[in-house]
């Protein structure tokens, strides 16, 4: 059997950072304005897809960027920042094209139904919500919230990947990358699903009353990620 205590004491920082990364991902999902199925029919504010999927799409794009950066530099801050930038670009581009579709393809102005005034631009919202819907499109506050969500998600994913790559191990580089990348993907999905269950699949952004529920999801992610972090660090460290 492997020396569990030895490996964990040698890599305690990695376990902490992975857990932190998982909690960041969990928190990030609360920022991403996702309207689920109703938003795809322009019946609710936000992006017309599922929370898990969009968070995963953004976070994994960040992971690809972080992976590329990890190949070029040893600076942890830079790797993590690149992950955040990659995810922000993905989600930013998705939201701007989403706005094109809502405004030019469907003909509805962006409007939130959860607040009467946009907290950032102070624009009146309620009168721009069409009859019988819960808002539509991406008002500025949701857009900014989405960017923050992308940044945090990419940050979390990159942090997990960087930490896994930093565990002291006897693995060859190829094997380590393979293992670290699939672990990062797995842990990412776990932490993308937990908050989706917390918010019931839809949220408008940080101005949404549901956003206040985030501590619950982050607590749950803390426990779940800690378990995954222990398992993955022992796997990589024991080889």
């Amino acid at each position, binding site marked *: 059997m492997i020396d569990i205590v030895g490996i964990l004491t040698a890599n305690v920082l990695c376990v902490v950072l992975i857990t932190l990364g998982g909690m960041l991902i969990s928190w990030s999902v609360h920022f991403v304005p996702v309207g689920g199925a109703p938003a795809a029919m322009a019946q609710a504010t936000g992006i017309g897809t599922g929370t898990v*999927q969009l968070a995963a799409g953004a976070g994994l794009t960040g992971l690809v960027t972080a992976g590329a950066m990890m190949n070029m530099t040893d600076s942890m801050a830079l790797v993590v920042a690149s992950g955040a930038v990659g995810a922000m670009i993905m989600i930013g581009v998705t939201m701007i094209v989403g706005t094109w579709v809502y405004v030019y393809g469907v003909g509805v102005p962006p409007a939130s139904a959860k607040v009467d005034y946009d907290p950032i631009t102070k624009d009146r919202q309620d009168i721009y919500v069409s009859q019988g819907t819960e808002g539509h499109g991406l008002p500025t506050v949701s857009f900014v919230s989405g960017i923050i969500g992308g940044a945090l998600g990419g940050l979390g994913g990159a942090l997990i990947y960087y930490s896994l790559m930093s565990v002291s191990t006897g693995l060859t580089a190829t094997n380590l990358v*393979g293992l670290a990348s*699939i*672990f990062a993907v797995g*842990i990412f*999905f776990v932490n993308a699903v*937990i908050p989706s*269950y917390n918010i019931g*699949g839809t949220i408008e952004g940080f101005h949404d009353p549901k956003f206040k529920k985030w501590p619950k999801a982050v607590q749950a992610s803390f426990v779940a990620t800690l378990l995954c972090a222990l398992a993955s660090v022992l796997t990589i460290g*024991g080889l």
Partner: protein
Amino acid sequence: MSAGGSGGSAGEAIPQNKLIVFGVVGGLVAVYLSYFLVSIAGSAFAFIGALGAICAIVWGCSAVRRVASYGLGTGVPSIGMLALGMGVVATMFGLAVGGIAGPVISLITAAIIGLVIGVLANKVLGMGIPIMEKSMTEIASAGSLAILGLSVTMTGTFMFDEVLTYVVATGYIAVIYITAGLAILHPFNANLGSDETQDRTLVTGFEKGAIAMLIAGIVAAVSNGAASTPTILIGLFIWYTAFTKYRELVARDAYDVVGTGLLPTEEELE
């Protein structure tokens, strides 16, 4: 991804406990049998691992079916991605530390992680689904067994060095992740509706499991320890059998199966 059905447990002709036994015993026996037969009799027996994966997948479908019929608040797919996310971490951990006991340790680790997430979902997130703990444990375990079975089929062994070189470092773990994940979540999602029946959903599980087996067979071509042709042929056979059965069940359950035609008339809809 549309809204899930809501409320109440789905009707079932085969009790869940039987399916648990089918999945766990079938999965573990197949993984070990495949490992020993490959080392004694040759690489052609690698396909048995995938049969175990199919058992686990069918079990997983049934667990998804039970929990998703309560309505998760988001799409059915989320739970499949969660299952495999937990499964991949647990499986690699089990294989890395366990040696010959690897598959059992993987299964237990997955069950623990699943149970913890199930408890968190009810206690912390307040989802209030009574079977959440049990189902999450089952789904994570099924995901882990499916990954194990398919890995054995790809390499002929569950010794971690081989799995690492041929499955993880090459990235084929990603294809296991998604083929097994979709095989677990797709059957219920594809048959969702008021007149969903258990046997039809589970047959879809067999059919999608056979596709995962087929792909694992193709990937086995890379490894020396596992033969690819038997896996592909047997996978195709299972797929054909399951698909034929599925078509029969669809014909049985559907309102009408027509070659072409107009919409039902107003009188018919009354």
